């Protein structure tokens, strides 16, 4: 019984071995047969066409931070709205009022960001 159970996994082991061997073979054959015309850009890590390295303490625009905070406003709203919506028929009118209050408070943050020009990029 135990033996037959482990025998079941033999095909997976074989597949893994074949994949490993083929992968290794491809790399080795490439090294042996492939033409080599190196220049410096080829050795750089690829990153969307940007220079791939630079200062780690890079300054970025504070606007991204504001966007991230605005995201949090809506994200928190959604997190609480889902469980509320699912159990809506069981928790009744009081929970409805509570959610209205909660959204009203979030709207204060939303309107504040709006008034202060948080949605304008320039």
């Amino acid at each position: 019984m135990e033996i037959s159970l482990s025998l079941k996994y033999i095909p997976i082991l074989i597949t893994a071995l074949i994949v490993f061997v083929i992968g290794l073979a491809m790399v080795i054959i490439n090294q042996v047969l492939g033409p080599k015309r190196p220049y410096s850009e080829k050795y750089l890590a690829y990153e969307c066409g940007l220079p791939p390295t630079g200062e780690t303490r890079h300054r970025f625009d504070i606007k991204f931070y504001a966007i991230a905070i605005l995201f949090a406003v809506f994200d928190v709203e959604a997190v609480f709205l889902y469980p509320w919506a699912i159990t809506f028929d069981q928790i009744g009118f009081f929970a409805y009022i509570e959610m209205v209050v909660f959204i009203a408070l979030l709207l204060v943050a939303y309107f504040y960001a709006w008034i202060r020009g948080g949605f304008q990029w320039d």
Partner: protein
Amino acid sequence: MWSSLPSFVAVYPEILLVVVASIMALADRWVKLKDVFAWITIATSVIALIMVFAVEGAVFGNSYAADTYGLFFKMIFLLALIMVTLVSPGYNRMVGIHFGEYYALLMFAVTGMMLMASSKDLILLFLGLELMSLSVYVLAALLYSDLRSLEGAMKYFLLGAFSSAFLLLAITFLYGLTGTTYIDVIAKKVFYPGLADNTALLLSAALFVVAFGFKVALVPFHMWSPDAYEGAPTSVTAFMAVGPKAAGFAAMGRVFIEALYNARVDWVEYLIPLALVTMFVGAILAVVQTNIKRLLAYSSITHAGYAVLGIIAASREGMAATMLYLFLYLFMTIGAFSVVTLFRQKDFLGEEITDYQGLSKTHPWVALVMLIFLFSLVGIPPTAGFIGKFFVFKAAYEAGHHLLVIGAVLASAIAAYPYLRIVMLMYMKEPEKDLAVNVTPYVFAGLIISVVGVLILGVYPEPVINFARTCCAGLIP
């Protein structure tokens, strides 16, 4: 349909503050006369102050109780809000932070403190603490173009966030042991012999000491406070020195005295060395300061050390003494910081101690007012500072901590020097330069309240101490 709603009367003061603060933050753009916000803040605080005396009861499934203990602290917070608001218009206009959000943030912070003082549930306590802390972090960083301010606010924020983690961990341990976050239920479950000498409970108590130690700036958790106090706008510093500190003590009362009263043998052991070190480090480091805001920061550390003596006493009398102390401390500290704000000009900080040289010749009244606050901070009768110290020392002595009280008296002798040095500079030196003072009607009214508070409570503190005794009666079984 509406009758099925639970009553929210107990949180009406907090609701009022939140609603008004939200409207002020939104309305700022269209209001040209910014003093309006100060008027609204004062009016709202006065109404809220009347309301906290009128409401009682528990809401949110008993996690919030408008009881007398909370009432006393709410009185402190709202008075602090009124007095800081009186300081703000003149000073904030001078430094360029006079706008609606400032007052809105003050009110949000006070709401957080009020939630802390009345919370019967550790989660609500944490929420209140975060609401308070986040508002005060922003307030401390309002002068963000000034590197000094930014540095102080950053330190305050990082260490504050760190201490919040400690608080959560402490709550976690307590929850793991008792299966609840309700303070009343925890109080029933923690007793000798049993849970009270459980190692995890000791750990939890130690973590609570660290978390609240950060908030009230007990040594060695005080590192942020001189930088944050110096960097923050002086009006905010006045608020920080009183509000979050009193709220920290309110939370200590809730956790140590109410929930962990039966484990007092253990947490008193943790607090005694902290209190001693706090008093001495605060007093000794204040001696070498040259900036008045840093000096007052170290002074507030020392005063936190005195106030914690009442908690260490772990008795009704001790808690009442701490509450009285915080109430009196409110007047002298905000008063002293109000005087500091007077000297601020556009291009002149007026924060060096040497700036006060010969003040009695150039501005005799300002010097006299400062003298009263400094004498109160030293603890010289007939000022409020003496009464406050007398009651906390007495409570700690009666609880049997004789050596601790001797240490406290020695520390207060050292602590007298930095204050008296300012008095000496003001009264016994000739003025070198003519300082301009910037007295608005608001700060004038604030100074009158502080002076009257310091002097009247210094000679007639009975009503307040009796009120404090009644207020903390429900805390200890």
